[in-house]
């Protein structure tokens, strides 16, 4: 996984609560077998009209936010489907940091698997950052995971990431390689279940389908 250490770029404000993963990337774009190229589908119904023309009023269609790297939004961002295509689409568009008062659990976890940083901030901070992001001259910000700070036009905010997740993002650690170090514990569970809870050990699926 590629690390996330520091990100400087334009922040876009999306003042909508409960943005669901269907809104981030609708089903029509899920029919892919690849992780890349999903940026064109990002927020499709918000970005384009029924004829495929850009909606000029939508923030990501306007300069400087066409080049947005950071998204500032409201509560419960990423609710609904577990599709990792939603963070993939944001990443493919160029957005690798999302700042909101709260996130849906699965989306939040999916971000960290892709070198993306979701940041939870109190609503007051969100409102301040959003007001700055809405003006081109103050929309540039730097998110620094190492120092746990956001340097923005009006000053510096600190945030409080989970220490384990921060460390893994900074190092770009492969979670699977990490888990495979615990092979003895995995073997131990499987041996225990084979004697104590045999019904879990062998569903016999091979004989069924």
């Amino acid at each position, binding site marked *: 996984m590629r690390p996330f250490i520091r990100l400087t770029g334009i922040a876009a404000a999306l003042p909508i609560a409960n943005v669901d993963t269907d*809104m981030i990337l609708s089903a029509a774009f899920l029919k892919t077998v690849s992780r890349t190229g999903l940026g064109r589908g990002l927020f499709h119904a918000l970005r384009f009209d029924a004829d495929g023309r850009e909606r000029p009023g939508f923030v990501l269609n306007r300069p400087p936010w066409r080049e947005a790297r950071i998204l500032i939004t*409201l509560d419960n961002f990423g609710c609904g489907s577990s599709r990792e295509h939603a963070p993939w689409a944001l990443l493919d568009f160029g957005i690798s940091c999302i700042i909101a008062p709260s996130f849906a659990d699965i989306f939040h976890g999916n971000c960290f698997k892709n070198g993306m940083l979701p940041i939870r901030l109190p609503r007051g901070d969100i409102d301040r950052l959003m007001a700055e992001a809405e003006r081109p001259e103050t929309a540039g910000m730097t998110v620094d995971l190492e120092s746990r700070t956001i340097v923005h036009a009006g000053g510096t905010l600190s945030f409080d990431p989970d220490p384990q997740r921060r460390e893994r993002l900074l190092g770009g650690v492969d979670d699977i390689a990490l888990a495979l170090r615990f092979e003895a514990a995995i073997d131990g569970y499987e041996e225990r279940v084979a004697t104590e809870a045999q019904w879990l050990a062998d569903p016999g699926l091979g004989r069924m389908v």
Partner: protein
Amino acid sequence: MTPRTLYRKVWDAHAIAPLGGDEWLLYIDRHLLYEVTSPQAFDGLREAGRRVRRPDLTFAVADHNVPTENRAGGLAAIRDPQSHLQVATLERNAAEFGLPYAALAGPRHGIVHVVGPELGLTLPGATIVCGDSHTSTHGAFGALAFGIGTSEAEHVLATQTLPQRRSKTMLIRIDGRLGAGVTAKDVILAIIGRIGTAGATGHVIEYAGEAISAMDMAGRMTLCNMAIEAGARAGMIAPDDTAFAWLEGRPCAPQGEAFAHAVAHWRALASDPGAPHDREITIDAAAIAPMVTWGTSPEAVVTIAGAVPDPAAEADPARRAQIERMLAYMGLAPGQPLAGLAIDAVFVGSCTNSRIEDLRAAAAIARGRHVADGVRALVVPGSAAVKRQAESEGLDRIFRAAGFDWRDAGCSMCLGLNPDRLASGERCASTSNRNFEGRQGPGGRTHLVSPAMAAAAAIAGRLVDVREMA
């Protein structure tokens, strides 16, 4: 010993190694896969030269993309080239990695969350994951079941584990008995209406109380299925005699003496008296009425006697703007009553409401009546087995005679990934789980309801209180 919740017992039995902080490696007993969220996970395995650790604990079936007509035609009958590619990719990956796969035209095919329990893959006390948020369904049996992303699916394929943090728990107790015509779907919509779509974020919900004890397994699966719509990581219900009777004889459940032995173990899973929950909510079953959503979030819900809210009455500007946006999308006016609203389409199906009990409830309303002119109505069984059972009971004949389309199993019109979808502006009474913008097709307008309410809407051609038709 400290009293523990059902969730805590399952967690403790599967947390096999601490990873630092409050993170643990959790062993996964069952991994379910389907065609949309798995291709990139297999690519990841190939790129890293990794194998599937436990193919025997893994099960794959294609459901989201599959057309619900001409199932006998198998893969060749999927005309959309991208859908065809996804299903063919799943078949190829299952063959390459030696995974059990339920063939499209085979007897075990169906929606993954319907087939898992049917096979007895879903068992009390198990940990179950799938790259689909409605994996919470399986919690109805006292399993800890939750949706994961594709990277996590790759992780489970390679290691049979996931790094996890323990969730908080929320007890939702439904006291008393549900009234006639009120179903599990109405209960979960009422819960989401009360706590909101982020109401249970960070929590695992445990449902309990008299109404839950009295509920059949199909209803319990509906409740747990939509726990995710309240933001919960999972929904769970302590396994009891109703669950054990449902599981006995299922092909992948233990058999004979082994089943009795397992039941003795499963009985101990129920939350201990006095086990602490982080939050507790109590709901009076008798106060729940048939529910219908009016907006584009499951929390935008009222009883069938209710009306669309007026955004002008909302003090918070963000919330006001959200309601205005929903009403514009849904083509509704402030104060408009839900009952009487004309509909164009009806969908009975999805992992929420496509089990035999759901189809019986819809058929009971459809029997001897006819779908209103101009309404297209689909009934899509959740699995090939549900379809066979329904046909053996004559439900297909009731539906067909009433003017419903009787289809093959699949996710169908729950989401716009297969040919069953709404046209822009079409209004649908749907038994599915999400009413998001465009969910059932771009521009489609979804009203979430129970199977009986959906059938009643099909007959009346408008949203109607099913209790007036029973």
